[in-house]
């Protein structure tokens, strides 16, 4: 039995073992299934990241490019130790929304758009082709190496994988994957069995590589010291290794661990508990560290001991053979087989789910190949679609390998796939952190990035060698040199990968941002954006979409077609029970429709689930409440309305002031009219009297002397009255205009008050009014004009006499001086001044209505008094009083004579109320 046959038998036996494990894991009772749902199994399943590329290719990479291979593991390490930011968020959302794939995740976020999902799927499929090809090539080559173990121990570097072998391997992988990935009719549950098998393969990879590594250190070399000593001539690190490419590859591998469909599958879709991430956060990087650690001595010793021209990608296998350790070689082969098969299985499961959910299903729904209402088993249809998709994916991989690209090193093929998968990164990060990102941006970014990647990296690998392509690559399409695929915009990077990565991610991100900024998101996009970006702050869980109505029977019919009758029944029954409803089917409301949509989404993806539900329920509306809540517009609206209220308050106040001012203006206008007529009347009365007496005197010359004299006396008295009246008006004008009179002088206000009371005695006696004086202000001095002050007192006193009580009228006059002020009050016991008049009493032309009948002045008395007191720096106020009107005159005192000269003119500190 040759080594190759032995390897084949081992591989088949191993595959059988895996089936057994998967079978047991799936059939185990729930209790024991928990064992497979452990954080360790979860972590090991994530290490499906380490494929043949790692197992075989990393050694080749280390041999060719030194420590560069570490970048492929440092990127994921950084992502996992930073689990708190990104991984946890994606995981929380995926678990909440029963996300089925990366395409489902992206499309869910961007409004459950099937366009976005289809683009991601196509991109992932194209990018997967090189990756699958890499696995096929690795297994095929490893078989050939084992077969040629006798004659060509190094495995020639130029060895081209045998097409027949590769084809058989492809068919074998397809069968293996179909049996594994689409065994169960139930496509909804998580794949316990597959995860368990992947975990075992991860252990085999680790053990095999560590074994080969130990052989290299202690079998081939004389311990670690020897290895490092030989490092100088092989993988000696140089400073230029740590340049732009180092950074670019770390970024690329970090993006790949998030964006590769199979990594998304194991990390987020198959996850059993969020707690498991806490273990994987450090254990997975540790797994990568251990693998990387043992790759180094294998590369060093392989280069040191194997014959020149050996294929460095096969060192892991050829070194044990050369060392005569067939057992370790067999283990290494098994490790490589495990790496390849686990990758192919998980990739195919992830991709076939994406293809069936996001390409086949939407097409079928549109072309009515699948009828949701009556007839047709959707479940079986989906399963067939997935199986066909698996075959298609593997065929793509096989064909890719057959192209010119198949001859490249494993690592360089893998990096092409990474760069393709990384095009999802902007849309993914935008989905998590930017609420403004929308469908248009996602579509634009994915298409731009995918196109640039395909043009600069993917197509050259498969079309390179064709004359047409080579001509295009050399001169640029249509002779446009700046569009050459290896030198876009004239950038001569020298490194096609970095060149492609730079331009694809740059244009991708630009298109994503610009696309998002140039369109407002639709309601469903806004809802999903908030649910994704604020997954940790929204406690309400998934948002509600309202207005979708259907009967429970219709919904059940739909559900059982997708999930099978038993499962659908169980879901309906359980939901009814959880609501406390005794019926078989729950009453249909928005919450139940949303619940059912989520369950369907777990099978067919969010976009298809939404389309199916809509086909039954009709159109939907996202409630305004919901939108307001998610957009946090409540806060904004409240602020806005507060501002409106504030503004309207201001407007209100201004309006009130305006109204008041207007009222005053009207009242002033009225007063002026009244005054004019009053003045006319007042002037007319003496004038009429003078004229008529003058006419009598002129017209009757025979008038007797006594009569004539009496008439002349009347004319004289009327003239005096007229002059007084005109004086009063002039006074008013002078005082109002503030024109300077005589310079102020010290005045004894008490003396002025005495004089005023004396002047009013005649008037008061005639009216029968008693004036009582009390208080004393001896030696008080104010600055001003004595006659003016006297005029003020007379005005107020005469008003008190005129408008005071008709019987038993008493006017009380008090005065006092102190605290810098001289204060005099004059109080009558009359009817007082009504409140509505109190406001205008000091205005010009105003006169008390109560006194209209006995009015004699022009209504300027109080206005003049008020103006005079103001000019003296004092105040004249109408004081509240129980009986009658009470006026208070308050004037500033002069402390002593020395400052008298400084006081030139009294200040006008108080503005007049008029």
């Amino acid at each position: 039995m040759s080594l190759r046959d032995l390897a084949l038998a081992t591989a088949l036996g191993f595959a059988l073992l895996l089936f057994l494990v998967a079978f047991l894991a799936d059939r185990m009772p729930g209790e024991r299934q928990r064992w497979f749902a452990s954080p360790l199994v979860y972590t090991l399943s994530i290490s499906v990241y380490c494929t043949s590329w790692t197992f075989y290719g990393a050694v080749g990479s280390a041999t060719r490019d030194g420590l560069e291979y570490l970048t492929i593991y440092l990127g994921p390490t950084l992502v996992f130790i930073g689990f708190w930011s990104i991984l946890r968020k994606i995981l929380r959302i995926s678990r909440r929304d029963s996300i089925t794939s990366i395409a489902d995740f992206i499309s869910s976020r961007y409004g459950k758009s099937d366009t976005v999902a289809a683009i991601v799927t196509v991109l992932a499929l194209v990018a997967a082709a090189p990756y699958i090809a890499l696995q096929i090539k690795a297994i095929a080559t490893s078989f050939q190496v084992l077969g040629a173990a006798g004659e060509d121990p190094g495995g020639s570097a130029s060895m081209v994988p045998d097409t027949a072998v590769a084809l058989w391997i492809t068919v074998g992988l397809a069968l293996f994957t179909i049996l594994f990935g689409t065994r169960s009719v139930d496509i909804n549950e998580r794949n316990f069995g597959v995860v368990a098998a992947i975990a075992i393969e991860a252990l085999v990879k680790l053990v095999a590589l560590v074994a080969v590594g130990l052989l290299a250190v202690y079998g081939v070399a004389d311990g670690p010291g020897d290895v490092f000593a030989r490092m100088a001539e092989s993988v000696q690190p140089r400073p230029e290794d740590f340049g732009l490419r180092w950074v670019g590859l770390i970024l690329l591998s970090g993006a790949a661990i998030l964006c590769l469909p199979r990594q998304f599958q194991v990390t987020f879709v198959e996850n059993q508990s969020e707690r498991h991430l806490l273990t994987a956060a450090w254990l997975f990087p540790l797994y990568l560290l251990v693998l990387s650690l043992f790759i180094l001595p294998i590369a060093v010793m392989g280069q040191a001991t194997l014959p020149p021209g050996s294929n460095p990608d096969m060192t892991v296998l050829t070194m044990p053979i050369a060392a005569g350790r067939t057992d370790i070689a067999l283990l290494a082969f098994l490790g490589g087989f495990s790496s390849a098969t686990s990758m192919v299985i998980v990739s195919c499961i992830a991709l076939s789910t994406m293809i069936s959910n996001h390409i086949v299903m939407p097409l079928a729904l549109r072309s009515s190949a699948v009828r949701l209402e009556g007839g047709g088993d959707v479940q079986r249809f989906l399963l067939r679609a997935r199986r066909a998709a698996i075959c298609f994916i593997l065929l793509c991989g096989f064909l890719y390998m057959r192209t010119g690209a198949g001859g490249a090193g494993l690592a360089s093929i893998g990096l092409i796939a990474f760069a393709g998968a990384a095009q999802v990164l902007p849309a993914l990060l935008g989905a998590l952190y930017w609420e403004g990102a929308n469908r248009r941006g996602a579509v634009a970014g994915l298409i731009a990035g995918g196109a640039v990647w395909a043009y600069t990296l993917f197509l050259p690998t498969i079309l390179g060698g064709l004359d047409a392509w080579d001509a295009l690559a050399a001169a640029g399409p249509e002779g446009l040199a700046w569009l050459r695929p290896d030198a876009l915009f004239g950038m001569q990077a020298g490194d096609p990968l970095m060149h492609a990565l730079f331009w694809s991610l740059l244009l991708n991100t630009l298109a994503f941002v610009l696309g998002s900024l140039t369109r407002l998101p639709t309601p469903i996009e806004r809802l999903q954006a908030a649910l994704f970006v604020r997954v940790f702050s929204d406690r309400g869980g998934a948002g509600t979409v309202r207005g979708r109505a259907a009967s429970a029977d219709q919904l059940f019919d739909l559900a059982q077609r997708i999930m099978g009758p038993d499962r659908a029944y169980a879901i309906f029954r359980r939901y009814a029970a959880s609501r406390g409803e005794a019926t078989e089917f729950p009453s249909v409301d928005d919450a139940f429709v949303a619940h059912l949509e989520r369950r369907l989404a777990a099978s067919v993806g969010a976009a298809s689930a939404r389309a199916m539900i809509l086909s039954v329920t009709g159109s939907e509306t996202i409630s305004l409440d919901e939108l307001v809540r998610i957009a946090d517009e409540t806060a904004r609206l409240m602020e806005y309305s507060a501002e409106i209220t504030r503004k309207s308050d201001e407007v209100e106040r201004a309006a009130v002031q305006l109204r008041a001012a207007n009222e005053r203006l009207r009242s002033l206008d009225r007063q002026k009219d009244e005054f004019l007529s009053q003045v006319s009347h007042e002037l007319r009365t003496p004038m009429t009297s003078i004229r008529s007496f003058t006419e009598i005197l002129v017209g009757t010359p025979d008038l007797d002397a006594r009569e004539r004299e009496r008439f002349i006396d009347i004319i004289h008295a009327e003239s005096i009255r007229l002059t007084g009246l005109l004086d009063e008006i002039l006074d008013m004008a002078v005082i109002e205009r503030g024109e300077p009179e005589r310079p102020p002088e010290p005045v004894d206000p008490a003396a002025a008050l005495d004089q005023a009371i004396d002047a009013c005695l005649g008037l008061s006696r005639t009216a029968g009014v008693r004036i009582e004086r009390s208080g004393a202000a001896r030696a008080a001095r104010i600055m001003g004009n004595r006659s003016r002050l006297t005029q003020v007192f007379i005005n107020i006193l005469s008003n008190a006499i005129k408008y005071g009580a008709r019987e038993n009228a008493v006017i009380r006059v008090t005065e006092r001086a102190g605290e810098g002020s001289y204060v005099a009050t004059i109080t009558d016991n009359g009817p007082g001044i009504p409140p509505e008049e109190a406001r205008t009493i000091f205005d010009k032309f105003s006169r008390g209505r109560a006194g209209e009948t006995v009015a004699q002045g022009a209504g300027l008395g109080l206005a003049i008094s008020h103006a005079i007191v103001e000019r003296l720096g004092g105040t004249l106020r109408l004081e509240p009083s129980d009986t009658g009107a009470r006026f208070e005159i308050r004037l500033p005192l002069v402390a002593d004579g020395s400052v008298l000269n400084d006081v030139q003119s009294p200040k006008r500190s108080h503005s007049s109320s008029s």
Partner: protein
Amino acid sequence: MAEEDGPSRRARDLAILLPVLGTVLLVPPLVGLFARGDARIVGVPLVVLYLFGLWLALIVGALLLTRRLGGTAPDAAE
């Protein structure tokens, strides 16, 4: 930020800072400093020691952090 209760703010900040710190230490110019010349410690090239040592330190850091943050993740397996 309405984050659920549990781990201290410091632990959460550290969880965000750890990968940032790791990135800064792993990329040029810092990493290039250790690759100059043929510096070796006990026969091991300095940059190899630096990279693997840093890697291990980051893993230990993550391990300690996950212990601190352990109380938060809901242990919900559907």
